[in-house]
Structure formats: C-alpha cells, structure tokens
C-alpha cells in the first residue's frame, strides 16, 4: 500500500516536476497577494521576463551542447549601446542590422575559440564577460545612451507596442521559442546538439562535426542576445553600460531551473521557458508581498533550490533517496 502511494506521487512528479513547482509558487503568491494573478500583472511579468527569456533560449542550446555562455549579459549591454548610438547617427533601419552584425561577430569569435580551438568555454566566456564590458565602455566613453527624439521614432515598436493586444516582446519571445524549440526537437541539427553535449567523443566518431555544431550554438546565442538587446533598447529608448550586468547568472539559473544539465546533453526549450517564468514571477511576487530586499535575495535562493530539488526528485521518482 505504502509503495503504491509513493509510486503515484513519484510518477506524477517524474512527468511534471518543474510544472508542479511552478504551480505551487503561483498558488503561494496568490494567497499572499490577490493582485498577483491580475491580468495586468501577469502580462507585465511576462513582458519583462521576455528579455531574459530570449537570452535564455540561446543559452539553452549552448548548455545542451555541453558548454557555458557567461558573456550574454555584457553582450546585451553592448548591443543596446550600439543600436541606440547608431539610431541617431544612421537611422533605425540601418542601425538594427549593423548591431546584429556586430553582435554576431562577437558570437562567431566565441564560437571559434570554443568550437574550433576547443578552449574551455567557462574561461573563454568569463573572459569575454569583462572584455565586452570594456568594449562597450570604450565605445560609449562611459556615457549613458539616449535617443534624442523619443516621441518621433518607430524604434519604440519592439519594446512598447502591442500587436493584436499582445505586447511585442512577448510575441517575439513566443515566436523565437517556437522556432528554436522546433529546431532543437525536430531537426537533425537539434539531435546533433544533444549528441555533442551528451558524449562529444562518441558524436565525433559518429561523423558529427562537433566544432561546427558548437560554433552554431554560439551563433544562435548571439542572435538571441542581439534580439534581447533590441527589445531592451526599444523599451526604454535609452541605456546604460551596465544594463545587462549580472543577467548571465539569471539566464543560467533559468536554464538550470528548466532542468537542463550543466554537463550537457539534456534540457528543452519548453522547460527553459518555464524556468524563465518561475524566476520572473518569483521576483515580482516578492515585490508584491513587500518583503525587505535583503530577505528577497535569500528567499529567491531558497525557491530556486526548492525547484531544482523537486525536479531532481521527479527524475528519481521520489523526494528522498539514499543514493544519488
């Protein structure tokens, strides 16, 4: 009898661990503040999570391929500064593709170092975190960037408008998530990403060009970062050099929360999206509950650990196990 009930819980968790955690948080915060699930608030949280979310989509590819990308925060700051600066110099129509080109070059450079030269991705991207920050500061001379004519530009479309009643950042996030989700789950390339991350040597012997797969993952990551930068810049029509600082860890937390393994080989886009939403709703929920900020740091950590625990328990099939 005892075994039966354990199996039941375990089986349920095993299928939906992270979703159960997500539902628990939503219920908890709703009890604490009835406004939490008000449509305005939910829409607001998803919209502001969208920027983090877009970055997390790309990082999911990188993590599944068995690597890390800690440079995304600085790269996002870089993209906002570049696109805002060029906006006033050459107009938005040219500024946006120029910014994408520059960010993709950075992504290609990292992809080359990690993929073809096989350097450790932690070292490479940690280095790029500060190198790109330096690049941004050199470019901007330390100044905040602001668009001169904030009312008269269509550039605000990406961050501030609605299409069919849905904010554009959410649409872009959903669109990219679907596209990348299909690429990861349904295409040969997607399967190669899992193969390279699961067992790189075996993948190489199976005829997969490992370097090219890793390189492509970093290109996808840079593409996502550039899009996130576009949304961010358009949302406030101004930016500071440190706008993306610390985001690399939040992005990584969201991806790990979604259940991707840091060792590579597992994870899905859908779960990353859930991870992003959990982080977004936690931040917002804690603000609404009105805890002191220093309590918030601790509570955020506890909630993340709780979510990861539930997810691991789900994989094991029980909440507690004497063996790993």
């Amino acid at each position, binding site marked *: 009898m005892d075994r039966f009930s354990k199996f039941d819980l375990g089986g349920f968790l095993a299928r939906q661990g992270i979703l159960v955690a997500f539902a628990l948080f939503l219920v908890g915060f709703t009890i604490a503040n009835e406004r939490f699930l008000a449509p305005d608030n939910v829409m607001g949280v998803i919209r502001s999570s969208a920027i983090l979310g877009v970055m997390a989509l790309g990082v999911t590819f990188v993590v599944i391929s068995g690597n890390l990308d800690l440079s995304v925060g600085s790269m996002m700051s870089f993209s906002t500064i570049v696109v805002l600066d060029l906006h006033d110099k050459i107009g938005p129509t040219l500024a946006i593709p120029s910014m994408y080109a520059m960010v993709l070059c950075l992504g290609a450079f990292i992809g080359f170092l990690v993929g073809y030269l096989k350097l450790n991705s932690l070292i490479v991207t940690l280095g790029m975190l500060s190198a790109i920050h330096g690049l941004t500061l050199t470019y901007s001379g330390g100044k905040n960037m602001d668009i001169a004519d904030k009312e008269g530009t269509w550039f605000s479309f990406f961050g501030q408008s609605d299409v069919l009643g849905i904010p554009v950042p959410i649409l872009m996030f959903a669109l990219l998530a679907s596209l990348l989700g299909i690429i990861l789950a349904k295409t040969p390339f997607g399967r190669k990403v899992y193969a390279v991350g699961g067992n790189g040597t075996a993948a190489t012997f199976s005829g997969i060009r490992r370097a090219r797969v890793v390189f492509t993952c970093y290109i996808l990551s840079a593409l996502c970062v550039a899009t996130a930068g576009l949304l961010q810049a358009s949302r406030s029509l101004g930016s500071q050099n440190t706008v993306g600082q610390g985001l690399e860890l939040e992005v990584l937390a969201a991806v790990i929360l979604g259940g991707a393994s840091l060792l590579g080989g597992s994870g899905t886009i859908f779960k990353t999206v859930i991870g992003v939403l959990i982080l977004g709703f936690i931040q917002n929920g804690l*603000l*609404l509950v*009105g805890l002191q900020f220093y309590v918030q740091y601790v509570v955020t950590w506890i909630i993340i650990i709780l979510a990861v625990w539930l997810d691991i328990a789900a994989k094991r099939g029980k909440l507690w196990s004497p063996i790993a």
Partner: protein
Amino acid sequence: MKTSFKSALVATTAFVGLTLSGAAMAETMKIGITQNNVGVDSYQTTYEKAFIAAADANDKVETVVLDAGGDVARQIAQMEDLIQQEVDAIIIWPTNGEAVIPAVRKAHKAGIPVIVTNSNIAEQGFEFVKSFSGPDNITQGRRSAEIMCDKFKAMGTENEAKVVHITGQPGYTTAIERAKGFDDRLPEVCPNVTQIDKQPGDWNREKSQKVMEAFLVKYDDIDGVYSGDDNMGVGALNAAKAAGREGIIFVGATNFAVGYEAMGRGEYWGSIYQSPVDDAEAALKTAIDVLSGKDIPFLNYFDTPKITQDNMAEFDKPVF
C-alpha cells in the same frame, strides 16, 4: 588601453619628476588623484575631464591622474605609487570606504595630505584625512523631501498623499545617506504624507522600472515617487506612463540629462542639481587650499541646489 596609457603617463611623469627634482620646479604643486571607476558612468567620465581641464588651466599645478577601475586592491597599489612618487597631496575617490583606510593612513604617515572626494571614507579613517570635498548626500535627500512636500502643498494634497521610494544600490553610502535624509525630512515638513513602500532600484533604470511596475500593481493610489537618482526616476516614470497612471509627482536626485528633458516635458517634477564639473573643481581647489596652508573645514561640501520645472531654466542641461 586606457589604463596602460595612464600607467605609461605615470611612469613618464615620475621620470620627469625625478630628473627635474630640485630644479626650478619647486614652486609647482604636484597633486595625485586616484579615482573610483572612470567610464562606468557619465558622471565619473565628466568628472575626470573636468579635473584634468581645471589642472591644465593652472600652471602651478602638476597632476598624476589615476583610476582604480572600481578595484580596491588596485586603488591601494595606486596610493602606494603616489606615496613613492612623493606627490605633495593625494586626492582619493574611494572604491570602498573601509578598505582604503590603511593606504590613507600610510600617506598621512608619510606626511602627504589626503583629500577625499565625492564619497567619504568611513569615520575611523577621518583622523588621517585633511578634508572631504563632495556633495552632502543627507542634505540632498532632505531637499528632495522638501521639493516633494512643497509640490503637494501647492496641489493641496499634503494631507493625504502617498509616496513610494526607490533607493540606490543597497550598502552604497550615497544610497544610504540620501534615503536617510529623505526619510527623516519628509515627516518633518509633511507629517501627513505617508511613505507606503521602499525598494532598491540598484542605480539601474531597468530594475527601477520593474520595481515601479510592481508598485503600480500593488497600490491603486500613488501620489509621489522619490528615486535615489534621476536615472532610476526616469525608469519609474516609464513604468507609470506605460500603465497610463497620471498625476504622479516624480522627484529624484543627481539631475541627469534624461531627467532634465522629462522635466522640460512636464512629466518629472524636480531633482537635485549635482555637477561633476563642480565636484572635480572643488576637489582640486580643496587640495590647492590645503597646500597653500589655508584654513578649510573638514567637511567641504559644494552646493547642490534644488531644481524643479519652475527654475530649470537657470541651469544648463546636464552633460550626462
């Protein structure tokens, strides 16, 4: 690039200093400065430019301009370099109010007067410091409270207004002092105004916008927002505009160009005008005064006046 250029400059200056020592240079004051983190924001960038310009304009002054890049260890090393070079005075913009004290003490023991600029060091280091030159952040917070209260009185809402408060980075002296000044002064001038919530915006416009969005969801009635600087204030303003909430009085501190523009559009009420140029010039002047043997107060504040939509025409638009 910048740092290596500066180290080269230091090396050259040191060399020139050595070769010329004892010669006709006796009349020149050699002042070294180690700054916090030039390039991290426009304020510090403008400060450095203004400092160099002010020093160049004075032929009696020779300067060694260094930047710690926000790194405490590097700043301590720079202090030691300056002591080795036997400069006449050292100006320090502390990266950390506690950690730099031993280095300040060392300079003091070597007989080099130390002037702290912009943000003060911790109190236990005061005995090793000749003078502090910078803004008075507590007064700034108090003045922001007065600006807000005066506006409520003008609107006739001083008996029911509700205010939310977005602070700077937790643990940062400027953030703590401004918040304290505001929190203390508001109930003195407007006893019936209530402060309903306070959260940090980390000096970050985007973070502040998120905080304000949550405030707007949580409270139906917000009449005023005080932010620790205009950069965050504009973030909060963006959130209110996006939510279609009107009639909120925004008051900030450290008037930024974006804040100044928002005031010009009538969306942002007021702030505190703090010029990095004044800040830099005050620091240099304090150092020169110390070396000329003038009697100067320990806390040498430069004035940071109130700026609102009413009097903004008297001020130039901030460069940052």
